[in-house]
């Protein structure tokens, strides 16, 4: 009976809560994006639905659901239908290993769904599955622009994954663990966020994360002014919204992982300085959310500012800049650790 409670009921409750929070968060992330971009551009953004457009996400969601779901006649129906799901599900699964609070929180069950010993590898691996949805969606549309988008995204995501992986290895070397909970605990015990230990790794991770989530300036697979929307050109209504949700969920994933790996996860700033303990008035999960929001804001800010790379430039940066720098970072980190520790 205890097993049932510990391994089924409690995780299930947590999963439901996290999925609910995440869905709401994604909905309001779209509103946040529109509002922030609007402010950057001297506009107001959505204002009509509710107070300052506060109900806009609900209206959008409703619109997506009641719109006609068009499947092109020449499309591969089966693949076309499931592709958005393939893109969406991994984006959500990753959250099962991301810790939102310390292990002793939530009545001792831990502020996470599960703490597996390969959590980081799991997160990277699962989020790499999402690209399949993009590729299959582009292929199944049986149309040229989506196909070009799919080709672009398969090349882009695979190459940026490599640099991203090498970026993360720097953290692994310092933390000595693949468990995200232990990585955060390590940052607490060392008294310093890994960003200050591994700034280069962070930058590489974050830029590659932008590329992985198809955000400007790396949004080539969907580049609406070149490929008319890329892989999701032929999608409409609910299925389109699934791709859309997956993209935003991935944004949250990248931000959450960045916070967990480099900015102390649920820890308050300067967690080792006792003089700042008044900051503890904000509970750990809230610290986590605040940090994630900062990174999401940067995502949006960048989108409002920068133009888009060209495909060959994108590949060049991935392979010729990020990857060598990440590798050098791993080597230097390793050398320093060997020499001084």
């Amino acid at each position, binding site marked *: 009976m205890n097993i049932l409670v510990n391994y089924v009921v409690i995780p299930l409750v947590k999963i439901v809560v996290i999925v609910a929070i995440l869905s709401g968060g994604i909905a309001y992330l779209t509103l946040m994006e529109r509002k922030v971009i609007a402010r950057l*551009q001297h506009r107001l953004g959505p204002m009509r639905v509710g107070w300052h457009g506060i109900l806009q996400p609900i209206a959008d969601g409703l619109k997506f659901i009641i719109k006609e779901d068009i499947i092109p006649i020449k499309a591969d129906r089966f693949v076309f239908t499931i592709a958005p799901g393939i893109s969406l599900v991994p984006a959500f699964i990753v959250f099962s290993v991301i810790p939102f609070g310390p292990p002793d929180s939530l009545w001792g069950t831990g502020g996470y769904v599960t703490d597996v010993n390969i959590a980081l590898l799991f997160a990277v691996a699962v989020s790499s599955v999402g690209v399949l949805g993009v590729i299959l969606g582009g292929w199944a549309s049986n149309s040229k622009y989506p196909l070009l988008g799919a080709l672009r995204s398969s090349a882009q995501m695979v190459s940026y994954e490599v640099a991203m992986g090498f970026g993360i290895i720097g953290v692994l070397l310092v933390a000595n663990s693949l468990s995200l909970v232990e990585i955060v605990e390590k940052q607490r015990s060392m008294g310093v966020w890994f960003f200050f230990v591994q700034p280069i790794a962070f930058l590489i991770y974050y830029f590659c994360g932008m590329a992985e989530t198809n955000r400007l300036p790396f949004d080539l697979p969907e580049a609406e002014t070149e490929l008319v929307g890329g892989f999701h050109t032929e999608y409409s209504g609910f299925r389109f919204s699934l791709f859309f949700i997956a993209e935003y969920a991935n944004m949250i994933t990248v931000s959450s992982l960045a916070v967990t790996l480099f900015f102390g996860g649920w820890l308050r700033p300067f967690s080792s300085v006792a003089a700042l303990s008044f900051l503890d008035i904000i509970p750990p999960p809230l610290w986590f959310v605040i940090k994630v929001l900062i990174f999401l804001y940067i995502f949006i800010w960048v989108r409002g500012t920068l*133009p888009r790379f060209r495909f060959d430039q994108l590949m060049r940066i991935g392979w010729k800049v990020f990857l060598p720098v990440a590798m050098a970072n791993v080597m230097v980190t390793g050398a320093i650790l060997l020499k001084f520790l």
Partner: protein
Amino acid sequence: MEHDIFGAIDEKTVLDANQVVINMGPQHPSTHGVLRVKLTLDGERVIDTDCIIGYLHRGTEKIVENRPYAAGVPYFDRTDYVAAVSNNLGYVECVEKMLGVEVPPRVQYIRTMMTEFQRIASHLLWLGTHALDIGAMTVFLYAFREREEILKLFEALFGARLTIHAFRIGGLWQDLPVGFLDACRRFSDTIGEHINEYEGLLTNNRIWLERTRDIGVISAQDAIDLGLTGPVLRGSGVNYDVRKARPYSAYADFDFDIPLGVHGDTYDRYLVRIEEMRQSNRIIQQCITRMPTGPIRAKAPRVIKPPVGEYYHSVEGPKGELGYYIVSEGKTSPYRVRIRPPTFINLQALKKLVKGHLVADVVAIIGTLDIVLGEIDR
């Protein structure tokens, strides 16, 4: 490779393992209207392009041949619909040339000023869409913010915003409204700052440089051979501007420079247009301070019957040399009207510019040519 008029894709090309034929347009966000470009791609590299035009053909030239001269003016609002004032100016001045009418200086100054406003508005629209095509969405909205101010000025003076019917043969419809010059001055005092703002977002931006430098390079000789005009020609370093070469309206009175590019690439054309906006603003400021008083209409005959003959008059539109060739048989309507549309001729360069570049560059190059399909298809 031959293709029929509908651009049907022949089977052999499809089956070729290495090449893909892709239709860009007529429904595509970056073809600025209904241009259709048939791209033959090897991967993402463009091997060949074919422009297919005519989706917006309305037979403007033919319609105008069946209308009285004065009734022809509004039709030219609709050729280059983002630069209606310049189009009107060219036609109106051509007819005035046929009639031998000399318009009063105040009219000339107002015309010049409004045409320069139109040039800024057109360049702003170009800047916004060009930047948006390359992915910088904020510049688009900034540019439209300022363009809106210009359109408000147009509305105050002409009563319309886009298809304006700005000028009448022999003068203007009405004199400047009260406070108009102050409004113009307010705009012209701030636009410089706003242009700096756009430049801050783009000019030294690494990504912008990577996307525009050495993209769509055309040499000065090639540009001349293709008959290109306007910023596209000046971007390659050829100093040809109708305002200087054959001054019309009041341009001879003003001090302004013609910015020139060096490399003839997309980035140089961008710089040229940005600088042109500043120069236009200079002209506007001179117009405001030196605005003469006097009548706003010349003595033009009520029924316009120009003498028999062929006439050509060209002005420097925002996009290049905009010429009107009118043949008169001495009747109330012209025998033949032919527009020399700058973008139609500039579009010819697309094939040459695009070859060997990537799909993303096609978008940038279409943007840099600053085409308007209303004018190309007429």
